[in-house]
Each structure stands twice: as structure tokens, then as C-alpha cells.
């Protein structure tokens, strides 16, 4: 009896979940459909003047009439998308390096040393996370573009992204460093290791999961960011991928939805690959400290 009730309950659960999955996947299926359709417009099915129900259904099912790679070839051959992708890679990689390095060293200091301003520092990092990112747009623009003259420059954008990524990374890493027993460091100290050596040889290798999460977060902050990049990257040759994508469909010219979709898929791939690669660390990193190892 109870088994039957259980399975009926499961049916409902599964129905709800299936609907949720469809809702989530539907837009992505459309992007894929448009990208592989070889066309530029969204409505690629011409409804007859007097459409039947079948015609209408056909129009909302994301399935291309023909499958072709022409949009993918064109964004690289006819459009400067390759260049934009390269810009994104450079900026994101640099942001990751700078962000992770500074966040690790800062978080270690916050976790282990007592110094004036320690609490205030951590708090200001936390508070900076409470405001919407766009609020910092104008001050950052003034500092980076007007004072430092780093408009349309890799370094300028990397600096901006690092300021956004570092506070979260520092909190994340500090939390992890706090869980690493001090006795390990004391033991290393007796063994004759210098503080720098303890950091590089003991702490960082042990914090790998947290460092992986931070690296991924920094990378994604930079890779997906749109507004800051749009604001300071004026020259077309310096666009990042998200900014470039926007210009396929945003202007007054013909809307190039096919290029937009193809470009989006290409731009999403690195993040997907990174996620898969770092999955193992992500799980242990995000739950860091929640259970006693």
C-alpha cells in the first residue's frame, strides 16, 4: 500500500521536474536551432496564410529545417569574432592570474596574521559586495579611463575585473584557510620553513579545492561580464566576446541572430569545459569546512 502511494508521489515529482527541465532547456534549444539553421532570422518557418494547428506547433518546436555549420564558419571568417574571443581569453586569463594571486595572499594574511585594519579590511570587502556592480561603474571609469588612461586596454579591464572578483575570492579563501590546522604551520616552522615557504609548500597545496573555485569564479566574472567591457572598450578590435555578440543584434542594421547564436555557443564552451574539469574540486571547495574531514 505504502509502496503504491510512494510511486504515485514519485510520478508527480517527476512530472514537475520534467516541466522545469523543459522550461530551462527550451531557450537553449532555440539558440542551438538558430545557430545550426544557417539563417539569421528567428522566425525561420514561414507560416502559411491559414495555418493549421500542426503548422503552429511546428513553428514553436526548436528544430531546424536543415543543419549547417555556415553560421559558425561565418562568425570567424566574415566577422571579427575570433579577435574578440582572443580578447576575452587574454582578459579572463589575466584576471584569473591576478585575482587568484592577490586573493590567496590577502586571504592568508587575513586568516593568520593580526594587524591593524584587519577587521575593517574584511568588512569593507563584504560591504563592497552588497552594492550592485553597476554602482561602481562611474568611479571605476573615472579611475581607469580618465586618470590611468587605460581605456580600450587589456590592463584597464583586467584591473576592473580584479576589483570585482577579489573581495568574494578573499572571503572564500579565508574561510578555507581558517580550516587548515595551525599546527601544520607550527610543525613546518619547527622544521625550518620560512613563512613564504609555508604558504607555498604547505598552505596552497592544501587549499587546492578553494583555489580552483576562486580561479573559476574569477575567470567567469571576466568571461561573462558585459557592461564594464562595453563601457571602456571603445575600439571594435578590443571588444570582448559578450560585447561583440551584442553588436550582431543590437544595432540599426540587419539583426544577425544566427551569428549571435553561433557566437554564444562558442563563447559558452570554455566555461563548460572548465566546469567539467574542475567539478571534483568545486564540490569539495564549496562545501569546505562544513564537515570535519
Amino acid at each position, binding site marked *: 500500500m505504502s509502496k503504491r502511494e510512494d510511486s504515485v508521489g514519485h510520478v508527480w515529482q517527476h512530472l514537475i521536474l520534467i516541466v522545469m527541465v523543459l522550461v530551462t532547456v527550451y531557450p537553449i534549444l532555440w539558440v542551438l536551432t538558430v545557430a545550426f539553421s544557417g539563417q539569421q532570422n528567428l522566425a525561420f518557418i514561414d507560416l502559411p496564410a491559414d495555418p493549421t494547428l500542426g503548422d503552429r506547433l511546428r513553428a514553436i518546436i526548436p528544430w531546424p529545417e536543415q543543419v549547417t555549420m555556415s553560421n559558425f564558419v561565418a562568425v570567424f571568417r566574415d566577422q571579427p569574432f575570433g579577435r574578440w574571443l582572443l580578447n576575452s581569453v587574454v582578459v579572463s586569463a589575466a584576471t584569473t592570474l591576478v585575482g587568484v594571486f592577490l586573493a590567496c595572499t590577502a586571504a592568508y594574511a587575513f586568516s593568520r596574521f593580526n594587524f591593524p585594519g584587519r577587521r575593517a579590511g574584511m568588512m569593507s570587502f563584504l560591504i563592497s559586495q552588497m552594492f550592485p556592480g553597476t554602482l561602481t561603474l562611474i568611479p571605476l571609469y573615472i579611475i581607469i579611463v580618465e586618470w590611468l588612461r587605460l581605456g580600450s586596454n587589456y590592463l584597464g579591464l583586467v584591473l576592473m575585473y580584479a576589483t570585482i572578483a577579489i573581495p568574494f575570492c578573499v572571503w572564500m579563501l579565508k574561510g578555507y584557510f581558517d580550516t587548515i*590546522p595551525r*599546527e601544520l604551520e607550527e610543525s613546518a*616552522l*619547527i622544521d625550518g620553513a620560512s613563512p613564504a615557504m609555508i604558504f607555498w609548500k604547505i598552505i596552497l*597545496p592544501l587549499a587546492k579545492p578553494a583555489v580552483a573555485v576562486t580561479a573559476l569564479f574569477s575567470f567567469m566574472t571576466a568571461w561573462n561580464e558585459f557592461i564594464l567591457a562595453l563601457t571602456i572598450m571603445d575600439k571594435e578590435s578590443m571588444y570582448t566576446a559578450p560585447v561583440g555578440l551584442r553588436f550582431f543584434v543590437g544595432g540599426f542594421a540587419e539583426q544577425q541572430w544566427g551569428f549571435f547564436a553561433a557566437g554564444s555557443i562558442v563563447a559558452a564552451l570554455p566555461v563548460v569545459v572548465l566546469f567539467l574539469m574542475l567539478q571534483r574540486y568545486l564540490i569539495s571547495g564549496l562545501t569546505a569546512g562544513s564537515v570535519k574531514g
Partner: protein
Amino acid sequence: MAGVIFDRVNKCYGDTEVIRELNLEIRDQEFMVLVGPSGCGKSTALRMIAGLEEITGGQIRIGDRVVNNVAPKDRDIAMVFQSYALYPHMSVRENMDFGLRLKKMDRGEMDQRIDEASRILGIEKLLERRPKHLSGGQRQRVAVGRAIVRQPSVFLFDEPLSNLDAKLRVQMRAEITGLQHRLKTTTIYVTHDQVEAMTMGHRIAVLHDGDLQQVGTPLELYETPRNLFVARFIGTPPMNFFRATIADDGARLTADGVELPVHDSLRRITQGRSGKEVMVGIRPENLYDVKRQTDHPTARIRLKVALVETLGHEVLVHGHFGSDERETDPSKLLVGKVDPHSEPELNQEIEMQARLDSLHLYDPETEARLGEEGE
């Protein structure tokens, strides 16, 4: 090899004094145990020797050298931590040679030291494993091995056995004692477990609230505890205490329902103190069955049995003396030992005999021992 000397050492955290004027000499090749309840300052004292805590006042000398401002690595010590503190991302071998590599020792000598240490500890087959693939006992051995390969002049142990189960603890206790006997390296061992202290140390230093209470061999501490704290702390089950009044110009001790003649060896203390109160201490093994034949002078005490604990080789009887209705008054509870087969019933009134020449007398105010060294 070297001794360690605490010379009027103080340690404060802000306004809180955790160690006060500690004077203690640990002799070369000695196995010294620092023991006390948690928060007594024993671990802090050990960490000050290691250089992991700053010394607020006074001097610590290792050998002839004042080490107050010497970096931990230059103190020629090795420490075994309670959590073992093995580097989780390194193999056992790498854990053991980490310090040696930092000293830029050549590979040949390093391997020789590791081989020797791992042979002594029986961990040869574990050298390539990571700590997480070791059992608690094996980790403990590796931690000791890591200390041995450094060939330091002083070993420091910070409660190294408290994470092991009871059986393994007994085994490792014997191994560490044996190792110290063999290597003859000065060893300072911190524990809160008085059994470890009694069984392992050449000498024991008892600390309480940052004050050194008594230093001596295990037997000295057991037989002549200098104050109530040490008397209560050393020995299981702990010494019994009750308040009594001196009567008949020091010839008798009286408490509620208890009359004990004072033995000649204690007369010097009680004489001329009629009417004064003292704390009388008697160890459970000196309070036994009336049936037991003994050459020692004894006196009888009537007890109402409150608890009987059978341990196999002996039976512990907890009982209250006196006529008070409050039969649960802990200040009138005594623990004695009877033979395994004479199990008394609960609430039964029994008689036991107290050995009179091994009573301990303490001043109830100062808590100091009355007698030769206490007065």
C-alpha cells in the same frame, strides 16, 4: 643532548596570566612529564620551549643557551603534536624528510636516518603512503618518526596519545617510554592523564592554574603530595578526604561517627593542636576489608554502602560515614577496596579498616601538607 631550564618564566595574554614565575629544571636525558587539568598552562609551557609562544618574562635555557629570542628551527628541538600535524599532501617519507631537506642535508644521510627511524618504529612499509591512508596508531608513529630523524637535543610531546583508543594508548605509552630509554634524548611530555604521567615520566611536574604545584618522581608525588590539589590529582581512584578535628592533645582525630587514633609518625604534627580542624586524606588501597590480616596499625570505620564497582581483581566500595540524614553528602564519602568475592550489598552497613600509618594531613585553609615539608 641538553637540559631545559625555566627561570622565573611568565606568560600573559593581555591581562591574563597563564603561567606565573615558573622555575623548573629538566635534566639532560630526563623524561619529564608536565601534567595538570586543561587550562593549567602545561601546553603553553611546552610551546614556549618550542618557540611557538613568546615568553612574557623570565628566561628559558636549552643547554647553555638562552633561547627567548631564538627561532623555533634553531632551537634544536622536535615536537610531536596532539593532532600529529602530518602534512596531508606529502607521503610519509616526504613528511619525515621535509625538515632535513630544508636543512639541505645530503640524500644519503637523509635516507639513512629515515630508514633507521622507520625500522625502530616499524613503519618501513608505509613510507610511500599518504597520511590519510594510515590508521591513528600509524600516524602517531610517523609523527614520532618525523621527530626522531631530526636527531634533536630535546623532544617535545603535546598530548600525543589523546586521539588514540584506550588499548592503543597503553601500547604507544610503552613504545614512547622504550624509545626514550633507548635514544636517551631529553624529553618533555605534556598530558592531562595522570596515569600517563605516573607510568612514563622519570619525574613529574604538576601544574594548576599556571602555578607549579610539585615536582618529583612518580612515587614521591604519590606518597607525599605537597598539597590537596596534587593529592587529589595523582592516583585513581583519587585519595579520600574528610574534615576531622584534633582531640586529646593530638592523640585522636574525630569526625562524625569516626574516631581515629593518631599514629606516632603523625603525632609531631597534631600535638598541641587540640580543637583544630584538619583535612585527613586516605588512599582507597589503605581503606580495606576488616577480614584482611595486616601488620599495620588500623582503626575501624563504619560505612553505609552507596556504590559497589567490581573490577575483577578487586571491588571498589563507595560508602558514607556518620549519622547525618543527608546520606549523599560528598564530603563524607569514602572509597575503599575489598576482596573480589566479598561483595557488600547496597545500603548495607559495613566496617572497614583504615591504615593509620599512611594517613595524609592537610591544612584546610592553605591546602598545604602538614608535616616535614608542608609546614
